[in-house]
């Protein structure tokens, strides 16, 4: 699974939508702890212990350099050793971390961040304002390959003011800059750091051992600035690529945390008294996209959109751990959600109507799917069934997961994608649907959409912004270049002893940032 797919999230879209299994009385996590209860008495953090965590994907690509972060394991490793200026919480708001407070000028083009004093790196050297400026601006360095380049394009300069303030000057207004700087791409490193083989950060842990693709061992940073934290003594990260093997290892007690459960393993983990499910409802979406630049007919996309039996996908494939989506990336709980758009469902008559308009006839249409795109292989098989009923000759092509995002997505006529939630809706749209942006795999170009996307970042009036977001959703819903049938929850398995996880839809295990908040009961 590749976490560099930018995705979006709304401010308040914590819950996603509850379909199938219920969201328990407003508590966003469905922690099915059989046996051990999450009773209040168990909620006093205890110190000590070591945790072994297994991820689906670890490779020789693993790194501590946040400019090159791609996978969940990079983000987890990074958040354990480094800090960011802000920390995006479960409700999508930026909370103080290395920055204590912040404010902007009325046009939101200049932001001042007041930095926490007395913070030291794990080697004892104090954190300086220069370090912070470097950590942001290094992504703009032309010679440096950084996945955060598009994110810093709007940042004109970072300067220091006095002994505790940094000033970020923007080219255009951005009301959500504090959230942007909470992304793990902006891990704070020492000024001038180029070599990340021996990382030194201000985070809760220090690297004890690092073997890319094999293991990472992190030990407690005794010099951490948060009082009493972290609670764990040691975290060991390993990779178990096979989903069944991950579940087996969790059930047998060989590991304490397993990312991304799938299939029958979910029931097993839920039923076992010594393990529990940690579910994070999310607007991570499954997308089925067309290349809009060549040989594109919106009718074909609209036909496909009417072929998904969405509730059945949630039930059969996701086993209830997800929710129905409406062909745009905004979830029902978001304040920006457009409730006036009718919810699309399975409608073979409409599908046939659009198919006829497209004139595709019995010409085969090939859909590229991959294990690297969560659930795409399974969802596509359901789609294929309805396609056959509607008279479309849809064939599937399973592509290798590792090279999917470079060799398939955006290169084939019709392909599956999935995007991970990101803290601001603008961030996602900017890089996935604006003309010419890197992750606009559909090569979609719509001047009206472009101006709306730029507009929402710079529009300070909330009502106006909502109206703009509504129009964005309508455009995507009707464009035919993409279908988004469902949102997918994060589904992790943990030992019943693991406490202190709070859902954060940015990613697995509290938005990857569990290391300083988890303890063992």
């Amino acid at each position: 699974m590749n976490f560099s797919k930018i995705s979006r999230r709304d401010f308040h879209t914590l819950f996603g939508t509850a379909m199938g299994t219920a969201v328990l009385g407003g508590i966003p996590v469905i922690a099915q702890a059989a046996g051990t209860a999450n009773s209040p008495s168990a909620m006093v953090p205890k110190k000590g212990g070591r945790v072994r965590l297994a991820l689906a994907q670890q490779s020789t690509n693993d790194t501590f350099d946040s400019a090159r972060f791609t996978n969940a394991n990079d983000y987890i490793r990074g958040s354990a050793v480094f800090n960011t200026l802000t920390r995006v919480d479960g409700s999508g708001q930026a909370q103080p971390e290395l920055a204590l407070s912040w404010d902007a000028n009325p046009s939101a083009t200049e932001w001042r961040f007041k930095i926490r004093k007395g913070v030291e790196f794990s080697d004892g050297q104090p954190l300086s304002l220069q370090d912070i400026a470097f950590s942001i601006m290094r992504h703009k360095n032309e010679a440096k390959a950084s996945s955060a380049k598009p994110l810093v394009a709007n940042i004109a300069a970072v300067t220091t003011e006095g002994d505790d303030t940094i000033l970020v000057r923007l080219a255009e207004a951005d009301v959500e800059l504090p959230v942007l700087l909470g992304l793990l791409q902006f891990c704070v490193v020492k000024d001038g750091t180029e070599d990340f083989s021996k990382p030194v950060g201000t985070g809760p842990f220090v690297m004890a051992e690092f073997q890319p693709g094999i293991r990472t061992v992190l030990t407690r940073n005794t010099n951490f600035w948060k009082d009493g934290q972290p609670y764990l003594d040691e975290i060991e990260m390993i990779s178990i690529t096979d989903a069944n093997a991950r579940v087996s290892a969790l059930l047998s007690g060989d590991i304490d945390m397993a990312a991304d459960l799938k299939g029958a393993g979910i029931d097993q983990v839920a039923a076992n008294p010594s393990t529990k499910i940690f579910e994070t409802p999310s607007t991570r979406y499954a997308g089925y996209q067309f290349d809009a630049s060549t040989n594109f007919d919106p009718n074909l996309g609209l036909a496909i959109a009417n072929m998904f039996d969405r509730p059945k996908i949630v039930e059969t494939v996701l086993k209830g751990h997800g929710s129905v989506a409406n062909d745009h990336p905004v979830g029902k709980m978001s304040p920006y959600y457009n409730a006036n758009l009718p919810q699309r469902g399975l409608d073979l008559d409409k599908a046939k109507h659009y198919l006829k308009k497209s004139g595709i006839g019995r010409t085969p249409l090939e859909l590229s799917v991959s294990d690297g795109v969560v659930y795409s292989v399974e969802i596509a098989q359901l789609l294929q069934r309805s396609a056959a009923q509607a008279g479309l000759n849809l064939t599937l092509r399973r592509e290798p997961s590792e090279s999917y995002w470079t060799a398939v997505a955006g290169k084939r006529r019709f392909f599956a994608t999935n995007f991970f939630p990101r803290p601001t809706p603008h961030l996602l749209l900017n890089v996935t649907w604006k003309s010419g942006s890197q992750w606009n795999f559909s090569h979609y170009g719509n001047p009206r959409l472009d101006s709306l996307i730029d507009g929402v970042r710079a529009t300070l009036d909330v009502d106006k912004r909502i109206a703009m977001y509504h129009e964005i959703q309508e455009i995507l819903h009707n464009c035919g270049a993409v279908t988004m049938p469902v949102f997918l929850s994060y589904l992790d398995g943990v030992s019943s002893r693991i406490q202190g996880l709070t859902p954060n839809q940015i990613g697995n295990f509290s938005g990857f940032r569990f290391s300083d908040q988890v303890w063992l009961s």
Partner: protein
Amino acid sequence: MMPHQTPTLFKSLFRPTLLSVVVALLLLVAFVVLAAPLLPLHDPDAFLSSDGFVPPSGEYWLGTDFLGRDLLARLLSSGRVTLGMALLSTILAHLIGDTLGLLAALRGGWFDAVVSRIVDVVLSVPKIIAGLVVLAVTGPSLVAIVVLTAVVYAAGVFRISRALGQDLIAQDFITVARARGEGNRWLLFGEMLPHVVMPLTADFALRLSFAILFMSGLSFLGLGVQPPMADWGGLVRENLDGLQIGSWAPIYPALSIAVVSVLLNLFVDGLQEREKKEGGV
């Protein structure tokens, strides 16, 4: 010289019978798999139940798979894919391997040297790794999988047919035929082929079962047959997590592979024994 002590009446009756039983069973498997579309079964690709791994019942004789499809129907339809592809690639492997192997034995010299070295190269690259690289380049199409399997196994076939050919060359009748002035083509098809048909048939049956396994390994790595189609290995793979909740879904296709392999091996054994007897008389 009789190879064994006097065979009892029972044994001499039993041996050929076993062979014919095995052949009959293999034909039965082929028939069932081929006739599956005509049988009153569920659609193998239809999503019948929202729950995965429904236990066997009157409706679903073997239960359902992880997405609620009828397992029996899928088992038979994937049997067609498995056996068809394995057969095709093994035939191809033998066409390539036998021709080159016998020719190499017959002509010797630079031809033999060149082909033998190429075969060495093919053999020294691990099969599954070769599969990974090749299918990453070509994409996992049915044609690519069949050709890959054929080439990978043709190398082994070559070694065997070449060895058989060399044994023949040393024998008189080839020398005699050569002295008669027969061309290579006649030597190959007229003189040599009839003598190697039996051992090569035996090898064919064995390699068929290897091919089934090799393709199931590819399926495990996600490079096999494309969904919703599956081979037996893929069926095992996609239902593997059912084991944890006590479902037999992955066991049936695995058993199918095993049964076909056992039958093929018994077939080879029977063939060899019969040949030995006939040769001994």
